[in-house]
Every structure is written in C-alpha cells, then in structure tokens.
C-alpha cells in the first residue's frame, strides 16, 4: 500500500528573464492556469455537493470513482482505439452505471445509518476502487491522451494560454451551464431539487425518491468523470492521482458553501487561483497547505461558506 500523493504538475512559467513586463505576464499566467485547475476542483466539488445536498452523504469515493472512469476512458483510447467522441459517451455510460451501482448495492442497504457509518461506507468503496485500479492497471504513471495538446498555446491579446487550460475552462463552463439548465428546467432536475428540499413531501407528491437518489449518484459520478479526465490530462494518470484533488474539492465546497452549486463553482475557481498565486510568489513546496488553511479559516469564520444561506439546526 505504498501510495504517494502527487500534486498536480502544472505548466507553470517559471522565469529566467526578469523585467516588469514579465512580472505582469507571470501574474496573468498564474491566474489563467489557476483558473483551469480551479475549474477541475469546482467540477469535483460540484459532483460531491450534488450528492451531499440530496442524501447528506459526504462522498469520499468521488475522487476514486472519477479515477476509475478516467482509466476506463484511457483503456478504450489506448487498447481499443475507439474514437474520442465515442470514448466520452462510453465513459459517461460507465460512470453512470458505477454511481448507480454504488447507490443501489451498498448505500441503499444501510438501515438507518449514522453519519460515521455513511462515511465509512464511502471510504470502503474508495479503497475498493483504488485497489481495483491498482490491480487492473498497475501502479505506473501514464499520460492521458487528451486530443488537445498541452504544449501549444493560444495567444489572446498578449496572454499565452495553453490550449489544454483554455479547453478545460471552456468545458467546465459549458458543463456548469448544462447542469444549471438541467436543474432549472427539466422535469427530472426539478424532481431532484424537490427531493433535496424535503424527501417525504416529494414522495407524497408522487416522486420516486429512491430512483431520484440513484439518478443523483449517476449525475454526480458523470460530472466527476469529466473532472477526472481533465485532471488526468493536466497532470498524470495513476491510481492515487485523485487524493490531492479530493481535498481541494472539499476545500472548494467549504469555501463556497457545501449546499450551493454556484457557490461551489466560485469556491473552486477561487481556490485554484489563490493556490497558484501562493505557489508562484510565496512557496511552491507548501502549495498544498493552502487548501487546508482555507478549510480551517472558513470553518472558523463562516462555516456555511461564502454563498450559502446559513442554516441552524433546531433541537
């Protein structure tokens, strides 16, 4: 069980040249690459928040579910040479099945579980998935063949954005917009929100809450899979790759508010940028401490998060 926790390797522009122009440029680069990583954190956090809102389960297996989905995509691409569009579709299908499988086979069987019990179940599932990935694909680090190059750059009015960062941000924004439309306008999305607000009332209204829970897991797992693929293409693909992003996802959730989807998105972006600026200007080796510091600070100052309504439990 010798597992390393790698940090995301980012195409950071560490300068040889000096000068004021370069300083300004570096600031822009740090913001953009931070935004790209932050987008991934935000997606992962959104996946967790979707579940947390519906079933009060904090899904510690989210990262590993995403990792296994990414490995499936990797296998399809490398071993079976499926075209990328079909890989995406098949991976989504796999992620949906994985999420529903976990909900139906494990979580649904728990009879009036405690918070600790639920956490243990997701942790157990995390270990199962981690072990499975290590067994099936071995401990080697691989690079995920994303169809966008991570060397080439776009030049947008003097600011160099690597193609992969650009597409990461774009994909995330599009996905968030789709999620927004889904929760706002489709029947299923509205049923999900109803279940989130009050399960009993939703069931009285004729919503099949059990199936809604499974669908929630399916959607969350799918969003997670996107995050996994993006994170793998920004960094490397190996079994413990999601350990660090998982903590960052939680940090984004806490920063923006664990009960608010837009809050989480903002939190993820903020975390990515803050972390990258910290790494660029203060200390690169202590970069991963930032997430923890933010968690503790937020929980001490405003536990409900920046954008969520405060909620007090009544006795």
């Amino acid at each position: 069980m010798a597992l390393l926790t790698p940090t995301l390797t980012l195409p950071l522009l560490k300068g040889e040249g000096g000068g004021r122009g370069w300083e300004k440029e570096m600031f822009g680069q740090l913001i953009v690459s931070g935004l790209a990583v932050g987008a991934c954190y935000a997606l992962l956090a959104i996946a967790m928040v979707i579940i947390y809102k519906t079933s009060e389960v904090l899904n510690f297996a989210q990262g590993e579910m995403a990792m296994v989905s990414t490995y499936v995509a990797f296998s399809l691409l490398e071993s079976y040479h499926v075209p990328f569009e079909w890989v995406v579709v098949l991976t989504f299908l796999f992620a949906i099945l994985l999420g529903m499988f976990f909900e139906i086979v494990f979580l649904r069987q728990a009879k009036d579980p405690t918070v600790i019990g639920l956490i243990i179940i997701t942790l157990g599932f995390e270990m199962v998935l981690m072990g499975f990935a290590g067994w099936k694909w071995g401990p080697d680090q691989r690079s995920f063949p994303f169809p966008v190059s991570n060397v080439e750059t776009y030049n947008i009015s003097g600011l160099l954005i690597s193609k992969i960062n650009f597409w990461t941000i774009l994909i995330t924004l599009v996905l968030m917009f789709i999620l927004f439309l889904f929760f706002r306008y489709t029947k299923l999305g509205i049923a999900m929100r109803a279940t989130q607000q009050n399960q009993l009332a939703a069931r009285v209204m004729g919503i099949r809450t059990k199936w809604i829970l499974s669908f929630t897991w399916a959607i969350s797992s799918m969003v997670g899979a996107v995050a996994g693929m993006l994170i793998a293409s920004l960094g490397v693909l190996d079994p413990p790759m999601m350990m660090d992003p998982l903590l960052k996802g939680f940090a984004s959730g806490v920063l923006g508010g664990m009960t608010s989807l837009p809050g989480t998105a903002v939190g993820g972006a903020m975390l990515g940028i803050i972390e990258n600026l910290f790494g660029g200007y203060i200390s690169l080796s202590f970069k991963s401490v930032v997430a923890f510091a933010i968690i503790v600070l937020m929980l001490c100052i405003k536990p409900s998060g920046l954008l969520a309504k405060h909620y007090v439990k009544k006795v």
Partner: protein
Amino acid sequence: MDIKRDYYEDIELFKSNTILVWSILFLIFLGILPFLVMKYHLLGMSLYIVNLITIHALVAIGLNILVGYTGQISMGHAGFFALGAFTTVILILRWSFPLWIALPIAGFVSSGFGFILGLPALRLKGPYLAIATLGFGMTITTIIKHMEFFGGRMGLQAPKLYLFGTPMKDIHYYYVIMITAILMTIGAVKLIKTRVGRAFIAIRDSDIAAEAMGVNLTYYKTLAFAVSAFYAGVAGGLYAFILGFINPESFHLIMSITFLAMVVVGGLGSIMGSIAGAALMTFLDIKLQAIQDIPAIGPALVTFSQKYMSIAGISNVAVIVYGLIMILIVLFEPLGIFGFWIRTKRYWKTWPF
C-alpha cells in the same frame, strides 16, 4: 450479580476473581508469547507482526476514545502518528533523550496538536469535521516532507537503542511496546469509567443534552481529541523503532483510513474490540500483501491477474478486501467484532433454549 452498590465497585478493574485469574493468565501468556512465536511461527507470525499489531491496537484504542466514545470523527490520525514518530526520533537523535522520556513527550506534542485540531471541531459536525481532519492529516505530512529539520523527503533513520550496553532487538522492543500498551489500555478502560469517560459518552449520545446536563462541551471535546492524539503519538514513537526508518510518504491518507477501519471492524465504543480489530486487520493486511504466497488462492489469483489484470498490482487485492470488510461491517454488523462477541455470548448463555 450485576447490581453495583457504589461508584468504586463500578470503576473496579477486576469485577470478580475469575476475571482476575484469567487476566493474570493472559499476562503470563503475553510474557511468553515472543518465545512461542519465535519457536513455532504459527500462521507465519513473526515478532515484527506481533509488535505491529500491538502498536496498531494502541492507535485504535485512542481513536476509539474519539470516534466510538465521543462520537467525533477523525480522518487525520496518520498525522498524529507521524508527529509522534518524528518527535521521538528527533528527540533521541538530536538531543539524545532516553526513550522513556522521549515517548511521553512525543505523546504530549501530538496531543497538543490534537487540542488545536479539537478547537475547530467544537463548531463542526460529522462531515465537516471529517473534512477538516482529513486536511490536517494530509497537510502535516506535506509540512514534514518539506522541512529539512525533519529529514525532508528522505525521512529519518531511527537511532539504535542500547539496553545495558547491548543493542536492543525485536524481542526487547516487544516488551517495551507490550508494557506501554498494557498500561495505556488499563488507562483507557479506567478513563471511560470515570467522570471524563461518562462525559464523552454523553456527548456522543447527544451533545445538546449533555450541555444541558452541565457537561462542558469545549473542555471535553478538545480533551477527547488530545487524549486520542496522545495514544497515536506514543504509538507512532514506538512504530519508528520497529520500522527502523521513517519517511513522511508512509503516513498517507490510506493509513488514517486503515486506523478508522480497525476501530469500526473491532466495534465502536469497545476497547477490547479495538484490540481485536487491530489484530485482525493488521494480520490480514500483512498476509494479503503477499497474496501470491497463500496456498490454493495465490496461484489461481496469479493466473487470473496475468490474464485480465496486471501482475505488478496484485498486492492491491489487500486494499480491495479491506474496503469490502469496511462496507460489509457497517451494513451487517454495525458493532463489529464486539457485537459478534456479545451475540455469541448471549446465545451460549441461554443455550440450548
């Protein structure tokens, strides 16, 4: 004879002479255990495994005080464990403290950090607390890894210890570890029975009710964290010596989860359960790491791996089994081994009815 007439009867360690006799027999058994193990190698046991089990049992007892008795979750116990290990080694290496002073200091350093972590815990419930402690566990190893004082990424070599001029071997460490473990187990059993322990249990059952009854939540919640971290710290100090080498990479998140798994498998809210859980999980872990050597299952798995999986990652089967055990225990036997033991006892008490 289950009626307790006064308080001192309740906190008594040995309830009856039968228990006293059995306890003494058990102590004698522990005393000669290393010789038995070295002679017979039952189930492929070695002194190293016995030592590891004892150390894990210590951590599990500490974690059970926090999770099982006080109802607070911690996913950062590998962090406390690491703190204890590094403090002990540095105290002995840099300032040549003797072990019996360095160990308690390591425990107190850990419990100091536990106290600090306990402060935000006052405001946090379940999931949030899990996040905060998870962050703590992952951050502390990052900090250790990047500081030269702690040996950086390379880690530290545990110093050789001498007993009356001869270098200590596994068997000497066994006695050191076992005596520490016995003392701390008795300490835990006593702690739970006293005022402090009952306050912990009251907080677990309902912290609002406990506060209304006059339990000082701030004091007892941070105290639970501190005590729990103390156990992990002392255990970490001992761990450094049986491993001989400590490296920040080895105190990762999975280790924290393993500790939690031991507590859950053993039974939440049971000291003896923690010991049983630690023994079972450590033993399973070590055996499953080398799963290809197990007769019958091993070769079959190897061929299966060659066909469908990767042979390099076959030790990951241990992780899968671990995860499945955690899930199944929560689903089917929430009280763990302890619950199983209670049911068996009840069954035999009324047998054959």
